[in-house]
């Protein structure tokens, strides 16, 4: 038998097998549908759909965006006061403590009103001795938290991907410099530096809000956290690129004359999409905690801008009279972080089913 004939026979038999399977599985559907292999993203989506916890995390994140950017202005409009408005009568109730949840507070600031005074509703009560609305501040705090967490993640991922891919792809002295730089940044006590930096650089960067698009102090935290947390993504990307650059398709691309930039962008980075997405999601969760922690220490978001961290800082002062104040900001931080962690874990399992046990 000549090779040509043999080839034809093999192709014929493969075609026969495929059509046989098609007849078996799609017979009821009419048998006209073409068999189509499931694409990579489709498989990922199918696996992800089965993970209820991850879906719940994703839904909660979407809800949080709506609550922060739609719900907060809406609630402000409906309640008739803003997150920074202070009502002296909300600050102190009859027991001398900040008003509790669901109280109607008189908006009369002059103290002359005696009967049928105009009131405004404080859903979760007042945030402390200044008498600001805790509920509204939590909603506006969500904006700050999301902005810092996402912004810092984008900065650190961009830096990390850039440095990591350059180091991994070029190797040699470029790799040496980047790797040493990574080790130096890793050796720094991250938290101590971030605390120190945001207290010194903070005063200069806090007022950059890009015309009110982001909150006061957000830019400082994004810069500081981003600049000190790029090393981990850089290491991941570098390790992946190191093994990918020896593959045949990179050699082929180089042979047809593709530039280094093009090889990195179109041949290497698409392979890194999965780890980058997963890692970014988990980093967002971590950055939500960072923002809250730094604001709690008083070096994050400056007052009067509301943030979950500075609400948490204020709360312990009233632990005897209004212990609930300690619960809310911590609970929002917990839910937000949990949502991103669940989503990240779910994404990792969907991208790489072997990783789950």
């Amino acid at each position: 038998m000549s090779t040509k004939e043999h080839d034809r026979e093999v192709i014929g038999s493969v075609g026969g097998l495929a059509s046989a399977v098609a007849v078996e599985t799609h017979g009821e559907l009419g048998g006209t549908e073409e068999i189509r292999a499931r694409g990579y993203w489709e498989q990922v989506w199918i696996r992800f759909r089965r993970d209820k916890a991850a879906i719940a995390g994703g839904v909660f994140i979407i809800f949080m965006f709506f609550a922060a950017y739609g719900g907060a202005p809406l609630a402000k409009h409906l309640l008739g006061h803003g997150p920074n408005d202070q009502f002296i009568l909300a600050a102190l109730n009859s027991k001398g403590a900040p008003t509790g949840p669901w109280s109607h507070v008189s908006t009369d600031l002059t103290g002359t009103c005696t009967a049928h005074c105009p009131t405004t509703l404080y859903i979760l009560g007042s945030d402390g001795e200044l008498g600001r609305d805790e509920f509204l501040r939590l909603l506006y705090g969500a904006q700050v938290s999301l902005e810092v967490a996402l912004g810092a993640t984008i900065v650190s991922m961009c830096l990390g991907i850039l440095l990591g891919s350059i180091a991994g792809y070029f190797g040699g002295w470029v790799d040496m410099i980047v790797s040493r730089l990574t080790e130096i940044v890793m050796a720094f006590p991250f938290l101590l530096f971030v605390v120190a930096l945001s207290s010194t650089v903070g005063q200069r960067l806090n007022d950059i809000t890009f015309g009110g698009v982001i909150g006061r102090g957000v830019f400082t935290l994004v810069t500081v956290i981003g600049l000190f947390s790029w090393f981990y993504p850089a290491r991941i990307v570098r390790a992946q690129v190191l093994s990918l650059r020896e593959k045949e398709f990179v050699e082929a691309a180089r042979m047809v004359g593709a530039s280094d930039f093009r090889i990195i962008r179109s041949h290497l980075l698409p392979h890194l999409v999965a780890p980058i997405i997963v890692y970014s999601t988990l980093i967002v969760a971590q950055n939500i905690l960072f923002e809250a922690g730094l604001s709690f220490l008083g070096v994050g978001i400056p007052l009067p801008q509301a943030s979950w961290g500075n609400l948490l800082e204020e709360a312990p002062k009233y632990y005897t009279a209004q212990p609930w104040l300690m619960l809310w900001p911590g609970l929002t931080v917990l839910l937000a972080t949990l949502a991103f962690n669940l989503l990240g874990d779910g994404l990792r399992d969907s991208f790489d089913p072997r990783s789950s046990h």
Partner: protein
Amino acid sequence: MIRYLIRRLLWALVLFFAVTVVTYVIFFLIPADPAQRACGQLQTQQCLEQAHHFLGLDRPVYVQYGKFFGRLLPFDFNGLAHGHSPIKMPSLGISFANRQQVNSIVGGAAPVTASLVFGGAVTWLLISIPIGILSALRPRSLLDRGAMMFVLIGISAHPVWIGLIFLYLFAFKVHIFPLGEYCNMINPPVGTSCGGPVQWFYHLILPWITFAILFAALYVRMIRANVIETLNEDYVRTARAKGAPESKVMRSHVLRNAMLPVVTMLGMDIALGLGGAIFTENVYDLPGLGRVLRLSLDNFDLPTTQGIVVFGTVAIIAFNLIVDLLYAAIDPRIRLS
């Protein structure tokens, strides 16, 4: 081994240099005017000029940095020229707030942080090793599911929040634990009952647990994954096939291998925890490095802030160096690569 040792030592020196440059830039070049901060309430022209001169701000930047770096070194070359002993205490400067030596401030705070971090490390190991191993042996059991819930909450809840809730529940509502205070273990202040090892331990239980929860969660996950992975290794199957008793398989084949990465992580995480201690210390009012750092930030006390950052970094570099050398002594693969 000697070559490895020298390489690591040189690298530690490079790191030390890099850290001091960065800290110097952050603290003395970026703030508007350290002299204003140094004078505090006394903003007269005379004070500002004196402060300028005293802080060396009228000199070129590299001279300023050189002096700062020289103070940090344990050698005194000037002293040698004048016939004194060349060895001196490294100096972190003098506080703007109360004219105290930063050395003594840091010296007082460091044992508190060390108590918290090392006690916390013991706590998180005590929590995570049994839970991690048991949930790996019974995947998808009730215990395993509970452990996974603990992991998720542990990595998502803020340590500050956990601390506040603990204080409220266990110290304010139910008076089991004290409302946060540090008791000196060795040299208690005269006239107080707060001192000695028992009180030290009792006052640190809540802070330890608070500090340990995040790491315990991470470790449960890591140990569980490691043990599950090791259980599937060929050598475990071989050991079982050869008829080794299950307890021996677990002890000398599974756990020995599964725990190796834990030992590696522990060194890094204790160093990391030195920074994380700042939250626990501020919640429980423990006068450690993190608490002093925050107070110094409130007072714009630059030398103290800087001193703590430099000391913290040096401690971490030294700790990492020791841990690396220990590993190299244990595992020949590391020092040869």
